[in-house]
């Protein structure tokens, strides 16, 4: 199994994802279609994806930490960034982007936050890596690579300029 993805390999995954997004059905021409990256890795991926699209989309970032269901267990993360959605969420077709999909809880938190900005017409999910271990019925519409990792390993993305990823041992038990 590959344990490291260099910038060229990440670029290849992103180009495939951008191509899949452009050929995806269902984006309503009449409404806004926008990318929403989840801080911080998802925001890096969303920005990189947008650069690889033939026609860039409006781009927003979301920090879903105020919406997580494990606040009581993990406490408040330091340096939470304000969410910025520079378009009208009401009636928009949103492409939610994250770097890694695991339990699905971050995606749930992000969707809860999106609905506090308005009622989107649709939400689709794009992730760079899907490492399974789902705890909620959430799946990605477009995925760069599906991995099967032991419970004590996680894939971590570094960036934001040069995106690289590697499999790391789990820290702090989360």
């Amino acid at each position, binding site marked *: 199994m590959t344990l490291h993805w260099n910038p060229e390999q990440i670029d290849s995954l992103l180009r495939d994802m951008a191509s899949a997004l452009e050929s995806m059905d269902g984006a309503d021409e009449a409404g806004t279609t926008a990318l929403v990256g989840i801080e911080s890795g998802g925001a890096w991926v969303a920005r990189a994806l947008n650069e690889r699209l033939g026609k860039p989309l409006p781009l927003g970032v979301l*920090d879903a*930490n*105020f*919406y997580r269901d494990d*606040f*009581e*267990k993990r*406490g*408040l993360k*330091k*340096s*939470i*960034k*304000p*969410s*910025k959605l520079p378009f009208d*969420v*009401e009636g928009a077709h949103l492409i939610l982007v994250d770097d890694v999909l695991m339990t699905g809880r971050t995606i749930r938190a992000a969707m*809860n*936050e999106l*609905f*506090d*900005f*308005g009622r989107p017409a649709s939400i689709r999910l794009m992730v760079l890596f899907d490492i399974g271990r789902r705890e909620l019925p959430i799946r990605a519409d477009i995925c760069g690579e599906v991995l099967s990792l032991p419970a004590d390993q996680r894939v971590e993305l570094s960036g934001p300029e040069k995106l690289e990823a590697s499999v790391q041992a789990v820290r702090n038990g989360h």
Partner: protein
Amino acid sequence: MTLAPPSSRVQLTDDGKLRHFLSLEHLSRPLLEDILDTAAGFVDVGGRAIKKVPLLRGKTVVNLFFESSTRTRSTFELAAKRLSADVLTLDIAKSATSKGETLLDTLRNLEAMAADMFVVRHQDSGAPFFIAEQVTPRVAVINAGDGRHAHPTQAMLDMYTIRHYKGGFEGLKVAIVGDILHSRVARSQIHALNILGAEEVRVIAPRTLLPADADALGATVFTDMVQGIEDVDVVIMLRLQKERMDSALLPSEGEFFRLYGLTNEKLCHAKPDAIVMHPGPINRGVEIASEVADGPRSVILNQVTFGIAVRMAVMSMAISGQESLAAAQAAREESGHGH
């Protein structure tokens, strides 16, 4: 009532997280910066279609106001509601304690209602410390102003405002003008500015409105407004607290305005891009002229907006600290049973 003990011992968990928020004395610069950074995440919540985040959903916040206040009470109430907490506001001056119930009886009753946080405003210095030392574990206490001692959330919203407009504190000269003697806000502002690294903090007031230990406050004292305001980046005007003056400390309000009231003419001596702040409510024509209060350099209303975000930050960090304390306690008990 006992005066404030060293605040870090009461306010912080063993690993340095905020547990109560009572005073800025002895708190660290990283912690204050953490509060400001967390508040930045909350500022935009007020502009959303749904002005709420679910962080304190299911928690109960009790506003205990032993001293009347409209603005502070309503911003704390709004901050708690924007965090999705259930909020109970008690005007204690008019309720149980006036029927003979002691403060401790009142606290025990509120704890029995499963309160998670007390926001306390009290006319006596040290009252929130006393309450923080008496409450059961898992209840956070936030000081919303005690006597002449401290008003830490007001000072932090002022720091947020300064950082927002000036980018930081390095090299900043800040003047605090007016009734320093009665102002818990001024005391907390001076602590905050010194901790956060402002270059110079000045207090400007007539001798009768300066505390006897003014020099020990950590600020340079001026009794001449024009000299004091020279070349400053920030002017913080204080409210003349007429209700706290039990003796004739001033010849007249007109005389005070002439010597210490902020007019455009006096403001010319500050830096051209200086901002003007005021904790409110303002006495127009007493400590500040309307032309300044409503003028382009005034950020007084922005202070109010930022105040909600800063209070949201402090409340969520204190609840988070209590949760981590409870988790550590549970882990200790579990390992104890394990042996």
